[in-house]
């Protein structure tokens, strides 16, 4: 699969096809992680985050790849990992310059609070919000998948989950600052 094809897949929400194409990068990611105080689990996690970032980047029509996609992905991975290490207070010996736009990464950094706020939610809330916003399920479908009595209950539940997430956000943002 060519880089162009992979990007097309991402733009068309063909997640599996894109992943299949990018899968070959995973071993080298693992290798990098292991060499930099990272475990295989960390590698999986970072790789997934990198895919998410790639996905978001390519949605912009003006996005143009100047390097091989593998290198680009590597860049994202390294950057994410550095961030993570800094968060864990394990600053690496060397910092490298990367080709990836700092802007996007910074946005991700800011976005971290929202991510954290979201992660603090219970499993059911998380599922509900993902199903509604990402999978774009209707209230009816939500009701049947999640075992709510009717649509109204589903709607109620979604509202409550969102409120909880906002609360979490406020708590986090007053407590810590990046």
């Amino acid at each position: 699969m060519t880089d162009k094809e992979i990007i097309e897949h991402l733009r068309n929400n063909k997640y599996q096809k894109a992943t299949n194409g990018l899968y070959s990068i995973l071993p080298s990611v693992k290798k990098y992680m292991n060499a930099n105080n990272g475990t295989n689990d960390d590698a999986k996690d970072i790789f997934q985050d990198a895919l998410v970032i790639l996905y978001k980047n390519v949605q912009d029509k003006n996005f143009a790849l100047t390097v091989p996609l593998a290198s680009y992905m590597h860049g994202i991975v390294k950057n994410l990992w550095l961030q993570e290490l800094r968060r864990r207070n394990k600053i690496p010996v060397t910092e490298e310059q990367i080709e990836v736009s700092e802007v996007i990464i910074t946005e991700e950094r800011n976005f971290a609070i929202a991510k954290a706020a979201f992660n603090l939610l219970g499993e059911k809330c998380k599922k509900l919000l993902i199903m509604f916003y990402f999978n774009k399920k209707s209230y009816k479908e939500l009701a049947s998948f999640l075992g709510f009595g009717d649509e109204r209950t589903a709607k109620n539940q979604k509202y409550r989950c969102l409120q909880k997430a906002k609360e979490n956000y406020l708590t986090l943002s007053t407590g810590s600052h990046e």
Partner: protein
Amino acid sequence: MTAEERTAFEKQMVADNELQQEVFIQEQIITAAKTAGLKNTFAKAIKKKWIIKRLTQFGVGVILLVAAAFVFYAIKTNIFSSHEEDRTNIENVEWISINNAADTIIETNDGVVFAIPAQAFAGKSGKVQLEIKTAIRPYDIMRQGLSTESNGALLQTAGMFYINGYEDGKPIGLVKNIDVSVPTNKVNPAMQLFDGVMDSSGNINWVNPRPIENNLRTHDIATLDFYPPNYIPALKALGKEYTNKRYTDSLYYSFSGYYYPEKSAGYKKLDSTVTIAIEGEGRFGEVTDTLKKYQGGEIFYQKCASCHIMGRDFTGPNLQDVLSKWPSKQVLKEWILDNAKATKKYPYLADKNNWSQSVMQVFEGQLNDAELEALIKWVDEWKGDAGQKSDTSIRHYDRYDFHYEIDPSRIRAIWDRKFNNTLLATKEFEERLRYIHSLCESDFLRIYIERLDKPMYEIDQVIAERTTGSIREKFLEFAARKDGRVILKQGMQEKLSAYFGKKYNAYKTATEKTKAKYEAELAKLNQVASEKKGEYVIRDIIREDKNFNEEFCINLTEAYSQIGIKRRCDDTIPPPPPNSIEYYNVTVDTVGWKNLDMYVLDATSNRQSMTYTDPVTGKTALLTYKEVSIAIKDMDQYDKILVYLIPDSLSSFQRIRQQGTLFKENLNSLFSYDVVAIGYRGDKIFYYKQANVQPGQYAVGLSSVSEKDLKGILQKYSGQKSNELRTEFEYQLFEQQEIMRQIQLRKDHEFREKIAAAIFSCDEGTYWIPEYPVVQPGDFKK
């Protein structure tokens, strides 16, 4: 800008800010949600890719049992990729809240059934949250990224499931077994159950394999078939109501106490499923004996009862224990057939001849050897006041019953709702019981009854060890199926074993009591018949005496009047010379012979015409007897025909004896006779009546008549005659019914013999190793 405007603006700004912030936060959250969803999606995509990679590595060697084709197809066409949009939502996970205090059955949408007994979890609150994950369909297995590796080797799988219980969010342990049923298209007996152990990377390694024991499904025991395999086919072949359970049960259970000795005999197969016993020695030799017994009774009543009454001397001697009084059965047979010839052949039989003045009838040509055998057997076994001896031809071996076939009372004791929800109430047991019936050992049934809590395959093994040949093979085959158990509550085994023992004995005793009662009834009936016959014969003789008396008187008076003398009948006449054949009791009280008296006596006794000329007066006395001969049309179709003469001047009727195919009698010209012929066929009555019959030849046909109507006809005669006719008719009717009864008894017995042969048809070819020492009936001599 005014102060108010400023305030308003600031307010607006603030408000907007708050609003803005609110909106901003919300958007952030939503983005976070989307991102989380995206991350999940990619995570799954990675997993899927990994699995497919592994599968393609191994290629043909790896087949998922339930749908191998599906997997290959998927790899070839990348089918997964085209549906991602909708697949990346909820995994096949269910969260269910159950009540720990009650039994719960849960079925997932892919057909896995969890049967959770009450108190299965070690929780306190009574409420348990179950997390259940199932992956049965290959799609689910793939999607959840589950492995099928066991210590590095790949497995075939019929499905995976995960179950965990939580109380207030905390996992709690399982204290009882949960039954899980995994749906499959085909049971593979080699399938085993593995535990899944998850390592740090989230991969599952399947370990600790153990065989799957399928719990057996129980049925309502009343719907199962515990009969011996040949029983219903035999009933069907004999045209009986084989679908009527009350009848089939009742008939089958009535064979309790029927045991056949082990030695096999020759028996012919009527068809492949039903064996009918035929004459032969050994095992089924008794069958013909019993048949003979009932036939013997018939013959006795038909042929012998006119001169013999069982239990006492009569015209002929008491025949009780007849064989003890004869040197051999053969000689007795010859005597019966022709006593004169036998006496010539065996001079010592002269004593028998001298037993009375009467001469025994000759039966040459009337009884064949089989009939003689039957008759002699019946007579010899006749026992005193109790009537007939009990049925000894089928030996009872109650005390030794572990030695023989399954007594129906055993089956009756287990074919009982009490055994519902046990190992016996299963199709698996029903299947095995058919083979157990074919073993000549009821003990094998006991093996099941005492192992109700064990798995079937274990019992199959036990039985296989005690048998050889094709039965052993069969039970090894059963054992290989690994049919499981039926869960039995604590303490039930002892209770059920005890219940079985109690019921078995109760039923056996009840059946035996009923049988004894039945045979007592039978004996009583036989006794009654015997007595009635006895009474009848006596009555008959008295009647004939009376008839003779009266006829003689009338003849005498007539003869004397013909020669001019008035002579009254109450004059006495001395006994006739001793070389007369028949001796009638004639009332005499005067001494002195008168010649004419003798002539008249002769004529009357012989029923022949006479002429006498009085030497004194020269006058002639004439008595005329002329023959009438009556032939009955279609004689053979009647069981019995009796022809009566009803003379007008006598107080009773006369019976015409049958000579060959005709009824002949000499009519006294002084009387006018009616003739009445009565024929019997089964339970039907036929008759013919003619008034004022004359000497000559008649050929008449009988017409059907009811008992009531015939009695009415006989009533028409005057006084005593009609009474005696009626009594005679009633007796003959009774005798006919008695013969019918004997015939029915024999038919019933024949039927029972055939059914017994079908029920007790164990396969002698099975050698078995007994748990108890082999006991012979002779070991327990009384």
